[in-house]
Each structure stands twice: as C-alpha cells, then as structure tokens.
C-alpha cells in the first residue's frame, strides 16, 4: 500500500508556506512570537527542530 505524501517533509526543494508560532524565548526570559515571514525579511536561514515532548530524554 502506498500513499502520496503531500507533506513538506517529503518535498525538499518546495517553498515553505509562511507559519507563525508562539514561543518561549530563554534569551529574553519572556514569551514571544516568531514567523517565517520575519525570518525571511531578516535574510536568515532557519533550522526547524521538532521533538516529541518537553521533560523527555534523548
């Protein structure tokens, strides 16, 4: 059985749609927000690092 993968993870080379996330920023000790739009405006490379859950291991 095979499924067509429409997700980005399988589409290296695709343009990433804009996204916004609420954040905790340790450097400021405060909450904030980050968006891909702002990162692109600041000409930054972005490394997005997903992990299952806080207070776990590995």
């Amino acid at each position: 059985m095979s499924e067509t993968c429409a997700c980005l993870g399988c589409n290296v080379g695709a343009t990433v749609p804009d996204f916004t996330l609420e954040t905790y920023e340790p450097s400021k000790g405060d909450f904030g927000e980050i968006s891909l739009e702002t990162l692109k405006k600041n000409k930054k490379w972005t490394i997005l690092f997903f992990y299952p859950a806080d207070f776990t291991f590995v």
Partner: protein
Amino acid sequence: MGAEVLTVSRDTKFVHLAWQREEKQLANVKYPMGSDTTGKLAKMFGVYDDATGLSLRGTFIISPEGKLMNAEVNYYNMGRNIDELIRKFKANLHLAKFTAEGCPAKWTDEGDKTLKPSAKLVGRVHEALSK
C-alpha cells in the same frame, strides 16, 4: 553561524519555560522554543504522529528565500547528530555562495574538496576527488 534555530514541540510555551528553567542541559539555550499546540506545523512538515499526537524528531533547514533545503526525520528513540546538522548547514552556506559547485559526501567544512560539475567531470569524479 547566523542561522535562526527554532525548536518545536506540542507543549505550550508555559511548559517550555518550566523545562528550560529546570533541566540543566538546557541552561545555555538561547533560541526560541516554539509551541505547536494544535500540531498544525508538525502536520505541514509531515512529522505528526497520529498514534500519539506528538511530533517525530524532524530537522528541516529552510533557506532565507523560504525554500526547504534539507529534511531529516528520526523515530522517537533516535537522537539526531548535531555535527551532521552543522555540516549540512555549512554546506548550504557554501553552495548558496558557489552555486555551480557540489559538496561531496566527505565534505565537512570550508576548504574541503568540492566538485564542479561539467562535461569534463562525467565519469571522472574519482580522479577529481583523489587529486
């Protein structure tokens, strides 16, 4: 090195605050810790696990133009090697500057041999890398 690192899990920003404060391994964390409570971003990147509602261990490198350049996804119990991530990031920076080059498998840093694809190189990669 100028990249914006953004970690993401389904925990709320409040749990991120508590975790960063408690776990000594995270004491030097300076990057934003993103909160994807609905799982929408995890689904967009294909790392959302329906069975658990958690995200798998995915790392994605996005260029300043918004193009997805690299994707690595591991199952829960396998950590990602940060040296490899740094290697890939440096390769991305190099290739963004030298668009006609290629970084071969053993490339790790500026100064290492790269490949310059051309008709002359066809069938001669071994010689090019052994010089």
